[in-house]
């Protein structure tokens, strides 16, 4: 019987590849011109997801780089629009690139990410799947501890 | 509609006494009755027969004495009674019991449209035989039914379960177990009882009639074993007070005060 396996946290999880995970990392965060997507571990006491990423379009063109609550490099002038429970990143023409929404339970949180994300080669790495995302290519590195200790 | 009702003869619970020295049940003078919820099941069957036509058969697995329960059911209006009895059936857990009863029902021609059982018995109280019988016969089940309505080839039933009232449509053939509240069993006139005990015929089937193997029935066919029986340990060593009802009532009031449920100062 085939079976997929992950780790689940009592406090906060992301929904990715139809599984719960405390955190995950795809791609290469260290290099300055490569795609990466980091959904970092959220510890008890915190309630907001920590998403850092370098986004590219379907042709491999660089779009933006974001770190947690802000966009740090933004050549095309995208906007970060918060709404109750989350935020979305939209292009100047209003197209939604990324949607991050956190559901609150009595004792914990679940963050659903939606978006169609390409890497620097124009290859599709993340795409929407029902109410969350499916990751393509290499198996994402499941995180058990926070990657970036801020 | 052809209905089979599974019943069990059980000791009338309040009259069980224990010989505490020898850890045995004192069976002298203990009345045997049809398990109360099985009476409710039988009543439901007779009700359906009245409305839809058909036959009601009652069936039980037990020692010879269980025949009394079957005759009583015939007196209430059942058309056919079958006793499943064999020394090898003894010591069965519900796995083995459902095997025996299921085999008997499979032997019936025509196969029933509906099987009714009481949800649980007052002696062993597991409530397992109904669902396990449904599984043995590969039938859909609903347990703890409080209402039954007939539709074309199906029944619409209501069930109270864990704080919800559920309504289901169940296709036939099916097995239902019934709860209190479904009906109030009819009183059986003495004359009908006398007739059932003198003239009614009870069919008897044993291991060979059911074409089962020894390993499938009774103690051998069971998966669970009782390791030991014992008295429950007493955790509270409370005080026991005797006296006149006045004294006892006063004692109670004092206790309520000490627990702060009543205030001390209220004068009588």
């Amino acid at each position, binding site marked *: 019987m085939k079976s997929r396996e992950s780790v689940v946290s009592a406090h906060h999880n992301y929904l990715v590849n139809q599984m719960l995970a405390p955190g995950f990392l795809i791609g290469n965060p260290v290099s300055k011109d490569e795609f990466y997507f980091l959904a970092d571990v959220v510890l008890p006491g915190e309630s907001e997801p920590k998403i850092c990423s370098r986004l590219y379009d379907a042709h491999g063109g660089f779009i933006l780089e974001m770190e947690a609550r802000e966009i740090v490099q933004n050549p095309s002038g995208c906007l970060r629009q918060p709404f109750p429970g989350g935020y979305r990143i939209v292009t100047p023409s209003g197209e939604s690139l990324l949607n991050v929404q956190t559901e609150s339970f009595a004792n914990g949180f679940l963050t659903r990410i939606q978006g169609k994300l390409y890497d620097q080669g124009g290859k599709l790495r993340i795409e929407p799947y029902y109410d969350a995302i499916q990751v393509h290519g290499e198996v994402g590195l499941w995180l058990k501890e926070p990657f970036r200790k801020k | 509609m052809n209905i089979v009702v599974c019943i069990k003869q059980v000791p009338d619970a309040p009259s069980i006494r224990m010989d505490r020295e020898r850890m045995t049940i004192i069976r002298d003078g203990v009345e045997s009755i049809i398990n109360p919820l099985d009476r409710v099941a039988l009543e439901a069957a007779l009700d359906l027969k009245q409305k839809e036509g058909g036959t009601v058969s009652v069936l039980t697995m037990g020692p010879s004495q269980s025949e009394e329960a079957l005759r009583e059911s015939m007196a209430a209006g059942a058309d056919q009674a079958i006793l499943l009895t064999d020394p090898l059936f003894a010591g069965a857990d519900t*796995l083995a019991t459902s095997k025996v009863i299921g085999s008997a029902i499979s032997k019936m021609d025509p196969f029933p449209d509906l099987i009714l059982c009481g949800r649980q018995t007052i002696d062993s109280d597991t409530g397992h035989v109904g669902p396990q019988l449904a599984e043995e016969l590969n039938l859909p089940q609903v347990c703890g039914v409080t209402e039954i309505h007939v539709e074309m080839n199906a029944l619409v039933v209501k069930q109270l379960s864990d704080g919800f009232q559920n309504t289901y449509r*169940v296709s036939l053939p099916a097995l239902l177990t019934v709860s209190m509240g479904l009906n109030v069993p009819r009183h059986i006139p003495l004359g009908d009882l006398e007739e059932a005990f003198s003239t009614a015929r009870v069919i008897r089937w044993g291991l060979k009639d059911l074409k089962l193997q020894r390993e499938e029935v009774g103690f051998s066919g069971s998966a669970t074993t009782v390791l030991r029986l014992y008295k429950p340990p007493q955790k*509270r060593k409370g005080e026991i007070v005797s*006296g006149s009802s006045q004294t006892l009532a006063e004692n109670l009031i004092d206790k309520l005060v000490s627990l702060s449920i009543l205030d001390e100062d209220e004068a009588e």
Partner: protein
Amino acid sequence: MKTKQSRDWEGVWVFGDYRNYFQNRVTLQLIAKGRQLARDLGTEVTVLVLGSQIHQYAMEYTAHGADAIMVVDHPNLKNYQVETYVRVVSQLVQNFRPEILLAGATAFGREFFPRLAKRMNTGLSADCVALEIDGSKRLLIQTTPAFGGDLLADIITPEHRPQMATVHPGVFEERIHDHEARARILYPEVDVQAEERVQLIRSKPDQSRKGGLEDADVVVVGGKGLGSKENFQMLFELARLLGGEVGATRPVILSGWAEENRLLGQTGKSVKPKLLITAGTSGAVQYTTGIQGAETIIAINRDPHAPILKMADLGLVGDAKTVLSLLLEKLRKRL
């Protein structure tokens, strides 16, 4: 199934019944006990979660002590349905081979587990009040009330696996919620085919659920020893005066003196009030299982040898009806 290789079966599984989650704590109680049993066996406790969009419960069970969570998330599992669930769980059990499988003795559990046990040709004990491991043989000792109530039976399932049991709510204590807890989570690929022969038409909360017996601070219970339905009615006034609720024993329900949702005991409700007054009840284990969690128990019975008197904190030997009438007189004057 019957097996000579019981060594191949490993692990303690608990079925996650998450309906009415915050009120219904039995799964959490079983996770705590299951964890202890697993440690005694040198293994882990896994909680099965079947349903649709059940992420919250996977996280809650993690917080309450699960070592692993096994999830089957599918729209066909949204409503609890016996055969659909039996189909899924039996596939999981056949594949993963847990040695022990536990569920709370909720109405669903008591309908689902027997069918599942039969599907897998294994033994099941109902409504256990204790569970322990016999380490030398890796056997689960399942303790249930027996013989209509006066005794306890220790039951084992020597040659079949898994060893299955449903457990009475309120017997074990849950572990407190731990926000830092983590668990492994598995998503097995199973065939989830809905049972078509039983269709749920509608489901609504049971309105007749009288006043929350389970939440009352004071519970007053009557047994057949009260003598009549009229005498039983006294309990309603007593409950009102003391700010409590009325409970009943099985013989009382069968006699039509009270409705079934007042039933306390093995097949009824379990209560843990501050005070429980039990009048005219003899003390069958099937009943006392439902009240043993009360802080203080006062019992009234005219038989000095009635078991209830020994299990109470205060036992009054007298005629229940008379003592209660006098008590009511005195209370009416005071309050």
